[in-house]
């Protein structure tokens, strides 16, 4: 039950990250027809978000506890890396009062850290269940 809830929570969080990155917390729009640096950071987050959503969906559908734990390890690593995409791996706009700094970056960091915490919780729960089974 605990792991099912954690799996569903990971799926919902990954979807919010993917959809939100190009809708309600998207980076800056184009300026005079030119895309700014943050646009590419947004694309990268959406792409990684899709991969995270697929992993989370497979994690929900599969019944094998060990595979679930393995998938959660992957989600943890990828979501932790996602937090570093805006501003660190890919530059954002120059002024920190622009949408990419005020909305996109903090939202991506908060959501990906939340996803990392959820997947870490699932990994710990998976190892604990495995330990109980082996006893």
């Amino acid at each position, binding site marked *: 039950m605990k792991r099912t809830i954690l799996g569903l929570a990971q799926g919902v969080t990954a979807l919010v990250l993917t959809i939100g990155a190009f809708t309600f917390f998207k980076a*800056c729009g184009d*300026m*005079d027809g*030119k895309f*700014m*640096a*943050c646009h590419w950071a947004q694309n990268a987050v959406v792409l990684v978000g899709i991969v995270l959503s697929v992993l989370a969906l497979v994690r929900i559908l599969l019944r094998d506890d060990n595979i679930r734990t393995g998938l959660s390890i992957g989600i943890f690593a990828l979501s932790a890396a996602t937090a570093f995409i805006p501003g660190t791996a890919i*530059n*954002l*706009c*120059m*002024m*920190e*009062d*622009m949408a990419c*700094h*005020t*909305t996109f*970056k*903090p*939202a991506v*960091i*908060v959501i990906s850290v939340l996803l990392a915490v959820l997947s870490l919780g699932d990994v710990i729960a998976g190892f604990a269940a495995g330990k109980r089974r082996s006893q």
Partner: protein
Amino acid sequence: MSIKKLLLKSITGRPLRSLALLFICVIMSGAVYGGAVVWASLDNGISSLEKRLGADIIVVPKSAGEKTRLEEMLLQGTVGYFYMDKSVSAELDKIDGVEKQSSQYFLVSASSECCSAKVQIIGFDEDTDISVKPWLQNAYSKRLGQNEIIVGSKLTTKVGQIFKLYGVECKAVGKLGSTGTGVDTAVYASSDTVKGLIRAAQSKGISVLSKQSPDDVISSVYIKVREGYDIDEVTAKINLGIDGVQAVRTRSMITGTADKLSVLSAGITILIAAVCILSAVIMLVVFTALANERKGEFALLRVIGFSRARLARQVLGEAFVICVIGALAGIAAASAAVFPFGALIEKKADLPMLSPGIVSVIGYALIAFAAVCVTGPLASAYSAYRLSRIDTGRILREGDS
């Protein structure tokens, strides 16, 4: 079963009840802590703005003299430029009460070359300056050379990097600390550098000035009034005595902001008080209802040897554990909302914001934590007293029948 285990079993055994209480604690601690941090940030922002204004009066061309436009440039970082004839400076010298004056030059970068946004460029005269240099000292104490700039804290340019403005390569030699105001997105340079940039803009076909040479114009004059003179009177003298200019008292520019801040502060205080009172009342009601519901359970615990004091400790302990978890979760959630999204709150509130220091933040967190951890056990104290005084025999007989 150990006492600690019984406490935890009692909390996890009724997940819905525990989650509801936890939610109340999260809301209460989040409101107290988050509200206090936002309030302190706004207060710091307005204090920083007051300190940074420096001058008593700002003189600008009449066309740019609308108070709101100046406020927007100072507070929200709205970019803009305007020019007036340099002779205004000489005329101001004749006004009685003017002790010191220093002119500044405003310019706006072209958006395409500054990788995505227009940047306000402010040129100041280092020999006469009274408003910029005092707070630039921490960023760069030497004299700014030609094409050397100091960048605001909200620009991602680092010290040593080259910043291209109108094709001119300018070197960032310092970075300012955060002020929480619009000047955080500006670039500061010597007046000679800005004049050179105006020429560079003209050579690129961007008409910043209509006809004059950059040497014949200034954008604004910052004035320090001589001691003993009334600032309002000097302001009026300038407005009456010099044509084509508008003198604005700096303090009057932040009055509107200060008023807005006081309204917002009052709102935050009322919200915190309302959430605290409501949470305490809900907790009291929930714990009282639970006391009735759990009479049978506690009568059994009495029968198996629990003392009255032990039962009271059990009730208080449950409330305390839930409050500790709820308070920590509330503080974490509020931190995740207030700090990363601080810039967004600042933008939406249209007010200068400057985050308080780490010591103050820890202080607010401790206050919120203490408020929740005291309210919860206090609200459950009456229930604890009632449950420890139950008539075991009567409750068990009622349960049988």
